[in-house]
């Protein structure tokens, strides 16, 4: 298992990477579904291009944040050419650490009354 130092290495996460990890938190998705999920959750605020998605996926796989699933849905249910990705345990810890980091930043800003009660994405 990765230790804290390893987790810290990946911080801060790029926004795309963070969004991809969020999309994979509750279910395994293929590339197109990830793009759509991110687009929906951010209400069109973040729309990944295919090449951006996969260069991110490549980096994240190398960093063991996500993994490619060897098992795929039955061909009857889905296109057999698609590859499915899942978040790794390490990926979850990195995502959580990133969320906490951003949350801490937001707390600091609130303490100085820079912002109000809610948390917003910095852009």
């Amino acid at each position, binding site marked *: 298992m990765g230790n804290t130092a390893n987790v810290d290495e990946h911080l801060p996460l790029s926004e795309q990477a963070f969004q991809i990890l969020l999309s994979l938190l509750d279910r395994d998705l293929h590339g197109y579904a990830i*793009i759509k999920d991110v687009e929906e959750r951010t209400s069109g605020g973040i729309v990944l*291009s295919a090449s951006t*998605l996969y260069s991110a996926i490549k980096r994240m796989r190398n960093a063991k944040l996500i993994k490619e699933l060897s098992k795929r849905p039955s061909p009857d249910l889905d296109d057999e050419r698609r590859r499915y990705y899942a978040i790794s345990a390490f990926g979850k810890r990195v995502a959580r650490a990133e969320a906490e980091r951003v949350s801490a930043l937001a707390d600091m800003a609130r303490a100085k009354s820079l912002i109000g009660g809610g948390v917003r994405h910095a852009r």
Partner: protein
Amino acid sequence: MKGKSLPPRPPVAVRLFDRLLELVLPKGSWTEHAETVEVFSDLYVRTPRRKKPAMLFRELRGLARLFSARLTFQREANRHMPKHPPFFNRFSDTFAGIQHAIRGLANNPGYTFAFVLTLGLGIGANTAIFSIVNGVLLQPLPYPDADRIMYMKQPARLAGTENSLFSFPELAEYRAESRTISEFVEFGDWTFTVVGHGDPHRATGGLVSANYFDVLGIRPQLGRTLTIEDEDRAATPIAVLTHEYWVRVFGSDPDAIGTSFELNSKPVTIVGVLEPGSHYAGRRKQDFYVNYASNDHYVGASMQDDRTHRMTDAFALLAPGATLEQARTELGALNDRFHEAFPQDYPERFGFDLDVLPWREQLTSSARPTLLMLLGAVGMVLLIACANVANLTLTRLVKREREFAVRAALGAGKGQLRKQLLTETLLLSLAGAGFGLVVAKGSLDLLVSYTSRFTLRTGEIGLDMSVLGFTLLVAVGAAVLFAFGPGLPFSKDLGSSLTSAGSGRASGGVARRRAQKLLVVSQLTVSFVLLIGAGLLVRSLVNLTRVDPGFDLENVVTMDAIDFSGGRINNAREWNRQVFTEIRRQLKGYPGVRSVAVANAVPFKTQSPRPATIRVEGRQEDGIQSPAAAFISISPDYFETIGTRLLRGRDFTMSDDTLSANVAILNATMAEAYFGDDNPLGRRIAFLGNQGNWGEWHTIVGIAADTKSFGLNGSDVGVVYRPADQNFWGSTIAIRTIGDPMLLVENAREIIRQIDPNRPVENFATLGDLRSEDIAPWRLNTTLFSTFALLALVIAAVGIAGVLAFNVSQRTNEFGIRMSLGADRSNVLMMVLNEGTKMAAIGVVTGGVVAYGLTRLMTGLLFEVEPVDPATFAGVAVLLLGVAGVGSFLPARKATLVNPIDALKSE
């Protein structure tokens, strides 16, 4: 599962994206290419038409970012590299590699020296022999229509005559009838006595039909060649000089054209000088060419009209479009017709036949087996050399295990290490090739004079580009083999390699040792084959020297005393009789001289036997044609002088002269052929003359033992001896002395000069010299082949010793342990010796099998020894085992000197 149809062709945008993505990130470096395109395709298809432009823009922006990221990455990487263009990088890398290799090799002079020397000798021998093979066998003849020039042979197979040549009437009929041959060229040569330019001398002149020059494409440099009018027997005698003779005898004098000189006392006008070049017709080098009118024999009736007067070589130029096969068929049919029409001229018991073969084949036929055998031999030497060098390289590789392991640990890839090895072996191989070229160049002149004993065709031998290419090919091939052949020592396990290399011992030794042993065994195998070949040749040579020539070789000297006054004295025979009688009288009275004789033929160099027609009185009065017989004209005491026994009857005496009855002495072969078991003494025979008339009867007065007058390896030929006084006086004087005959030479010359100053004396040679000259080609063959075989043996012996020594050094600890556990020194000695002799034994067995298959190819080069001669095989096996034993002994002894305590301490 749903049935599948062919997927539809993707939209243009998807295909374009595919290409762009590949440009930005080459597929090799980007494994997600297919999925990316897939996702793009999904997005494109599912995005509504009005949103497509935004989507495409987004995708292009993504690609642009990726591209920019890649450029940044590359710039970062390049910042750490020297600022040179890529080509210069590679060049300086290579240069550094070469420098590194040279340093490494200089630190290992032993390895470098052994590599270059071994490979150099192998390449040198191959290059030299290949140059010869190339110049003699491979290069086309230097004539424009060389491929269409055929040589015709008329063998008399049952009489054992390979080619009985052709007569003018035969060729005239072939010429009239043949459609497949456009030109028949006649060629004969003759030894002429030349008077009138420079010193009187003998020279070889080609008697040719006028088309000789056209067919061979030989042009005159000065004057002209022969025309069809010159062929007439009443034409003016004319000569065309070869360039070489013109330079040598006429001092390149252009005014020689139009002058005349005397050939055998006949004035002949010089009409032309040929361009420089090689003349390969005939069996000797020609000095000039003459028309038939220049030679009395050629214009005689017998030569012109007698179908059995076969003295002419025949060349045939294939007609345009005709093939060799067609010519063979047509000429063969014509030949059959001759046999039917003139049965008396083609007696069945002689087995006359017709062969047509490319001239190039004929010209090189006697050189071919010898040269191919030598090429095989040097090829084997090269194999052994390569095996030896491979072994050296393997050993060195093991010794460098630590170096390689460290370099690998520092990041050198396998490819880089191979490249380093290749640089080294390439340097060494090229140095070897350079050394080989020097060896080849140095030995080429010797080899050319050697080759000239087998073929006239030596004019085009040289180290040319193809030979250079051959050498380079061998060198580079060897280098690549040595660099990529052996496995890298640590390729299996780098870690264990580092550990064991640190302790000074090699790891992974089993495969390496097996490979080295295999190499040594193959060296021994090839050595064995070569030694067998050499052994068979040595035995042939020994057999040849044991052949009884029918002469007593001791204390006999021969010399030529040619009469150059010739026809200017009215009665040459009477003049010669007086001169030689006086020479014999004075020499015989000289202290230490036992007997003196005169003849027209030197033993071993007697002119070739020719077909003759002889009739026996009271039997076969029409005559019997003999396939080949020699006529030798001799003075009294000839047999005593050269030491040939008279089996029956008497020798000639001075009373056998023009006034007495004609007499003859036959040799045993001739007597047997004509009289069988009957007693020939007192019987009379007669010979068909040049003009087609029967000569006078000769009474047989004696039978002489057979002699090897035509070469030691020849079969016995029928000889008719006739008295010089009744025939003609030759110019060879033979003197038998009591002591060393060469001491007498100067005195003999002076005595002869006083008797006849017009008779220069030359060509002194003892009978022993003449015999040596006769077997010289055999001796040279044997010497060359044996040299290669010994070279191979030495390399193989060094190979055995080297591998065993290396293995012993690797097994020091093992020997130490063995001895501390009670093995005594003789056990260890035997262990290593056994290892060596085992390899040798395998080499002998495999070599024996290979030799058994190969030596039969040598049959034509052997004399009275079987290609599978048990004695030779056994002798060579003993030799090889012995040498292997000696080669193993030194390392074995070293193994016994291991001190067990030291060996264990070092562990």
